[in-house]
């Protein structure tokens, strides 16, 4: 665990990512070793099927290698940048396959949010998150449960307002309002945590 926590250190990841941008295959391998289980867990969470998640991870790392030279460290943390790529690849894979993914907002909430609500039960550390993710987890845990679900559902399943409304059996106006308010609250909360 401590090793993983250490390897997700943004400075170290950044060094490897920049080196990969200069076609340093060894650094790229280290970057893969440090982040692939985190990103694979993420792809599995979106796609549910092992085979599809493997495809998304592979496509993701090929794109990471091919685009590493364009990575701008002042715009995004390395994990953020890589997660964006893997998420997009996962949605591409999903669109290409005929599978429909079973959506389970409830499970998302119980798996992760319980840990955030009750850090004693599952310490946040055991999820091996970066500082950015811990801050976001803290701020999301301060949202109302249903609001949090709506935001997570949209993020993990690439849903529109109306699709979220359908999934949650809520009026679309309610979903729009909840998402807008939740995003504003997250912004305020994160800004406070950043302030010294």
């Amino acid at each position, binding site marked *: 665990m401590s090793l993983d926590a250490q390897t997700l250190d943004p400075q170290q990841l950044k060094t490897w990512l920049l080196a990969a941008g200069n076609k340093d295959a060894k650094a790229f391998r280290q970057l893969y070793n440090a982040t*692939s289980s985190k990103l694979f867990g993420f792809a*599995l969470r979106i796609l549910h099927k092992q085979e599809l998640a493997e495809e998304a991870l592979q496509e993701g790392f090929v794109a990471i290698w091919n685009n590493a030279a364009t990575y701008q460290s002042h715009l995004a943390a390395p994990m953020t940048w890589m997660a964006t790529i893997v998420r997009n690849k996962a949605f591409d894979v999903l669109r290409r396959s005929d599978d429909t993914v079973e959506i389970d907002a409830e499970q998302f909430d119980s798996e992760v949010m319980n840990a955030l609500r009750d850090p004693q039960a599952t310490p946040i550390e055991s999820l091996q998150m*970066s500082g*950015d*993710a811990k801050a976001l*987890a803290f701020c999301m845990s301060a949202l109302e449960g249903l609001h949090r679900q709506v935001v997570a559902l949209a993020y993990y399943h690439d849903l529109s307002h109306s699709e979220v409304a359908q999934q949650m059996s809520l009026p679309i106006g309610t979903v729009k309002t909840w998402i807008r308010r939740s995003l504003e609250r997250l912004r305020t909360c994160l800004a406070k945590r950043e302030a010294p």
Partner: protein
Amino acid sequence: MNIRGNDALRQKLASEYVLGTLKGGARRRFEGWLYNDADLRNITAEWRQRLEPMAEFTTPVTPPKRVWKQIEQRLHLSPQGGWSLWRDSLSFWRSLGLASSAIAALLVIVMSTQLMSTPQISHVATLMDEKSQTAMLLTADSRHDTLEVRMVGNAPVPTDKELELWAVPKSGNPRSLGLLADKGSVKLALSSRAIGNDVALLAVTLEPRGGSPDPNGPTGPILYKGNWVRL
């Protein structure tokens, strides 16, 4: 619509763009604005930095070793003896966007195979896509009776489909030479079915998994085609 100066709206659109709820025409419009508006790009990057760490809210799962193997193979990351020159040439060639040059392909093959010395390359072919970009390189090794097919481009194949290689004779049904991977390279057995004098065309079609269900020929569209050059 002009969104410059309307900070609340800019924040809202950027956040929903990152979250993914901004869809369709609104999303495309937003991407158009991003192109010309550096401040909007910064706002969007900030939102990405805020929301994208949600990716880390999942339990880590170690991926199987084959995933790295495939990445390594696709990106030609592990040099192996005489092949390294070939791999380097290939990636260099790719990075220059010279994929359309069949002549470069032939040169690379001839140079690298001479270095390898053992195989006896009797035929080479470059298969092109509809835009006349090289998609595959075929080399027939008559000493080992192998036919190597190497993907050049990066054209993903849907998980329920496979690529199938055909030799189309001057008359009669196309002959299946085997199924291909959508990346890396594949070695197939070489026979006169592949390099016979009557072969008029080589073609790759998109077929259901396991290959064309029709014993008389392909069922899917032709993706790439080309012909042999005898050396």
